[in-house]
């Protein structure tokens, strides 16, 4: 009886103490002198966790490389790089809260944007208010950049830069393709890019015979796929995250749904997709903002694309995809801007970012007036023989389009 009372009291006291501690404590300890702190709010748990972890890998690789070289040079003095992570649990409002917390409590100098267009846009309001330069590593929707903000930059070009070259290649190399079926996940990026695809298809004279959205967490697509099969399209375009695409691909094989061209965004860019799908991944086309096969001679800390891929491979034992590369290039771009500004003054760094015109391992980087990059030529690629082969742009083309997906 007494014991249970004691337990209860201690539980309450314990939680009360923790509650009080939470209000008074702040995240950071006394900081070392010559350190530049970058805030990185990421979805480390929740549905976006796989993507969040990829970003973390990119940031960490950059920080490691920068510190190996002694740090970032600011007006002659070397400053070490420190990245402060916080988990916003794949929840957009928490992303906003985390961003504010990092600025006010954790004393970060600069910010990496939250993952995805929605969270990046929401959190950018805070970073703009506090005038903290932010580079978003994974925000492609142009709506993110339409608020006239001066402190927000992004390394993904708008969605239509992925669908337009793709449609043009298909139209040129596969003239027998007349009907397109589009299946999109009902989520920000997958739906947005599917809508771009619809526009692109119509603009190029293709008939969109099917356009449907599937709910997040759908376990079974068999009815949808049977319907698509009955419409007999020559091009099947599916968007979603890697698990959705694996499932759809498997069920396509199950139902014996074949077509000359099958495009999936954004799974095939990932190594896990190719490994898990095995032979069924063959001849699937896709597009993304970057590909390890690219060959740029960068002026950033990583230098050539090949070097970046090699460094990544050494550290993580796998090839980087565009998510990790984008995160790393955000760090590299900050480094260039800070070194050019010669100071940690946020406005000066911001101005340097705005006038950047430099080639990096990610590609040529120049930000448009709204902060979104406009200098990239996103590659279109196809999986051939379990390996991604770049079809576009011409400069890094590795092979020709192959038709027929079984």
């Amino acid at each position: 009886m007494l014991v249970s009372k004691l337990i209860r009291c201690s539980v309450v006291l314990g939680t009360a103490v923790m509650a009080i501690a939470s209000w008074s404590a702040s995240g950071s300890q006394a900081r070392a002198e010559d350190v530049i702190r970058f805030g990185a709010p990421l979805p480390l748990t929740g549905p976006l966790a796989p993507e969040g972890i990829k970003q973390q890998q990119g940031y960490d690789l950059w920080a490691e490389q920068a510190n190996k070289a002694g740090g970032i040079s600011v007006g002659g003095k070397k400053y070490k790089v420190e990245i402060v992570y916080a988990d916003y649990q794949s929840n957009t409002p928490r992303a906003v809260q985390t961003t504010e917390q990092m600025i006010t409590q954790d004393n970060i100098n600069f910010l990496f944007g939250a993952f995805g267009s929605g969270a990046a846009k929401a959190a950018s309001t805070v970073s703009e208010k506090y005038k903290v330069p932010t580079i978003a590593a994974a925000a492609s929707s142009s709506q993110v950049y339409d608020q006239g903000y001066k402190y927000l930059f992004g390394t993904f070009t708008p969605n239509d830069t992925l669908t337009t070259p793709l449609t043009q290649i298909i139209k040129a190399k596969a003239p027998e393709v007349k009907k397109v079926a589009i299946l999109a996940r009902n989520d920000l990026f997958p739906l947005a890019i599917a809508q771009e695809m619809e526009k692109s298809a119509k603009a190029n004279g293709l008939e969109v015979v099917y356009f449907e959205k599937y709910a997040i967490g759908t376990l079974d697509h068999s009815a949808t796929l049977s319907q698509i099969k009955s419409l007999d399209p020559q091009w099947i375009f599916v968007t979603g995250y890697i698990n959705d695409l694996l499932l759809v691909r498997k069920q396509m094989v199950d139902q014996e749904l074949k077509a000359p061209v099958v495009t999936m965004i954004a799974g095939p860019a990932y190594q896990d997709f190719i490994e898990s799908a095995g032979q069924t991944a063959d001849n699937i086309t896709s597009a993304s903002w970057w590909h390890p096969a690219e060959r740029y001679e960068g002026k950033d800390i990583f230098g050539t694309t090949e070097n970046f891929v090699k460094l990544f491979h050494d550290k993580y034992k796998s090839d980087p995809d565009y998510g990790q590369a984008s995160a790393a290039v955000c760090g590299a771009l900050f480094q260039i801007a800070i070194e050019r500004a010669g100071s940690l003054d946020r406005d000066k760094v911001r101005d340097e970012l705005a006038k950047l015109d430099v080639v990096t391992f990610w590609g040529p980087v120049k930000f448009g007036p709204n902060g979104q990059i406009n200098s990239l030529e996103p590659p279109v690629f196809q999986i051939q023989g379990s390996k991604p082969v770049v079809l576009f742009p011409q400069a890094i083309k590795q092979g020709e389009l192959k038709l027929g997906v079984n």
Partner: protein
Amino acid sequence: MTRANLALLIVLACLAALPLVGGAYALRLGTMASMYAILALSWNVVGGLAGYPSFATAAFFGFGAYATGVLLNAGAPLMLSILVSLVASLVLAGLLGAVLLRLRGHYFAIASLSLVGVLRELVNNATDLTGGGMGLNIPLASGSSIMADALFFFYGMWALLLATALMVIAVSASKLGFGLVCIRQNETAANMIGLNATLYKSIAFGLSACFVSAAGGLYAAWVHYIDPSDVFDILYSVKPIVMTLMGGLGSPLGAVCGAFLYLGLEEVVWRNYIQIHSGVLGVLIVALLLLLPHGLISLRFRNFWRKAKHV
């Protein structure tokens, strides 16, 4: 007015003094705390007083968020949008309540849970109106400085909290409140003595929904971007329940204290246990339920006030 209700008002008055001691971030936490308190207090009306375990809080939170968001996008002023959401949800919940509250126990819990799912999917599919899965961008309600913004939303949420608290106090002192307690104890008997259970339950459900919707609306204006999975999140239904259980079922003061304590815990856990914070939260929930089934209230006021009756 009972001692506990007086204490509640005093707590709220103390909360209003927060801007004197904290900066913008503290105000942000304060706004969240007020919001959680609104959810917990509102839930208490249907869950604590009437004894119906409702999981529909998230449904009305999302409803309010989207209703206000859509109205703001159409150019309506903030106050009006929130007011419209409040009234709309009062009516909607009242009507739904008349239908759903015919169910009891587990079945009611599940029906209220599915309400969240139905509304979420409806919003998801009305892409033209709500942006569907792509989310809704909401224009900035005020374009001024950081502190002014933070103060505005803090006091806005606080005002809603005060309104909710007054509503709850009024209900518990009124015939409605008494009727709800009768319904919780024995609905059949209550019906037999002439109490119009359906009417009372519907009103309770409506009241439990309207301030939640208003809070959702203010929240949407605060964060500028909402999407269906964010606002129709089942956690917005579960957290108020945990908070109320922590504080003491049936007691408004308990609900508010539970909400503040829960927020404090959440902040501590979230900051310090990045990888395992939801697990730690789970452990806290389990520990609280097993060790403290009657909530904090039963501990402190044991001597001068009877334990809040649990369902």
